[in-house]
């Protein structure tokens, strides 16, 4: 998928004015993707309650258009919420590969970011050894404000991605 869309871009470069079309398409795509992040939440630890509250009454992530979804095929974003063990990391990778392009990963909390309180465990791994992470949200657990700020940083990142088609290689 990634290579195909790059191919399309190169093959149309000779058309005069194609650059303007690319930038318009990029702008519209960035706008739509920015406001329509559907995350699947992989809650493996105690950041879960904070994540629930982020979708809940006081903080309401849906204001930003972020709608948690059940099936990974329709999602754009994995939120890894909580400690990732070596066995679980394989599942994170499966989930990542089942998701359609463009796809993003958010690491919520200290454990998936850098093993957190389990720094000397034989089993815990940082999630970015397995999948490319876009945004790290620190905290143990991070407060809902922090999670929302992380999602807003992800929105900025999506908006500023200037490529037709896909984000990742």
């Amino acid at each position: 998928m990634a290579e195909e869309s790059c191919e399309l871009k190169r093959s149309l470069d000779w058309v005069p004015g194609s650059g303007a079309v690319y930038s318009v398409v990029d702008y519209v795509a960035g706008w739509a993707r920015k406001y329509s992040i559907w995350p699947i939440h992989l809650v493996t630890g105690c950041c879960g309650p904070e994540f629930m509250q982020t979708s809940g009454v006081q903080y309401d992530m849906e204001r930003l258009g972020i709608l948690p979804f059940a099936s990974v095929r329709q999602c754009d974003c994995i939120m890894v919420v909580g400690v990732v063990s070596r066995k679980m990391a394989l599942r994170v990778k499966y989930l990542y590969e089942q998701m359609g392009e463009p796809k993003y990963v958010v690491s919520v909390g200290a454990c998936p970011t850098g093993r957190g309180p389990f720094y000397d465990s034989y089993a815990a791994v940082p999630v970015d050894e397995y999948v490319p992470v876009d945004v790290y949200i620190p905290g143990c657990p991070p407060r809902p404000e922090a999670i929302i700020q992380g999602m807003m940083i992800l929105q900025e990142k999506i908006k500023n991605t200037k490529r037709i088609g896909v984000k990742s290689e």
Partner: protein
Amino acid sequence: MNVNILASIWNYATEFLAVNAKPLLQIYVLPGLIFILGFAIIAVWFERKFLARAMLRVGPYYCGKRSGVLQVFADFLKLFMKEIIVPKDMNFLFFAAMPVLVSTVPALALILIPFDANWVLWDIGSLGLPMFFAIAGIAPLIPIFAGWASNNKYGFIGAFRVAYMYISAEIPLVICGAAVAIMAGSFDLVEIVQAQRNMWFAVPQFIGFVIFFLGVIIESERTPFDIPVAEVELVLGWRTEYSGILFGFTMMAEYVMFQAWTLLFITLYLGGFNGPVLGFLGVTGSHIFWMLAKFAFMVVLIVLIRTVYPRLRLDQMLDLGWKYLTPLALLNLALVLGMKMLGVY
């Protein structure tokens, strides 16, 4: 020469438009394209906002200047530009045709609904009600094929649940439809509406009214009965494998189905297009206005039901369908026959 050709094309076009203005308007605006798409867009936004307000949340807010009115467009564009994943060893055509069919077949049923005595897109007289049930009876086959095509265990279980649910719901619905046809003395939807000029059929057939209301929610897979796409137990039911715009089509299908069945419900029980004539709209305009007003009321009611009630289990749903709705529908039919024989109606 060129001017002559252009002038004749212009004449032909104006004549064509003048002759076919009403059918074109019907196809593209009222029971047709703009009504279906506009309803899907407005209803998704309204439902998300209404659910959020009922849960004391805000709902979509930042997309669009006020109240997230552009949220649905953002979602649609994103789905349109997303990768479509096709699982291995699969007939792509069969897999991809089902989401398209699932939103177009219920739209076919929509063209039978009378918005006025002379505003029916496909007026087939006394075949109207049987044809509606026939077209709407094809519709559940498509989710079954979709679940089969996606070759996934959750999709397959969801497809079987669709089959269970529709069979247990459609029998009471058809019996209620028969009772309405007996009371009106015709299968013609326009005549059914005109028979309710003095009193809506919701009053003499109160049992059938309640059954049909439940049936509308069941047929459109709304929340107290969204068993085939149960989000927590089956990942997304028969929609599990669909990604990108194909998933967008399956989402739209829910709303088209909802639209067709709700309009039939209004036609059969809530007096259809009957209503006081509003002077500034004319007769046809006020009939269309009353139809749309009743439709909007029903939409709000059914979304409100979604906010309040949890989902039934599959066995509870089958109990409801076979042990309660079907005998009550037969009782309703018997009452209607009694009223007819005693000459009350």
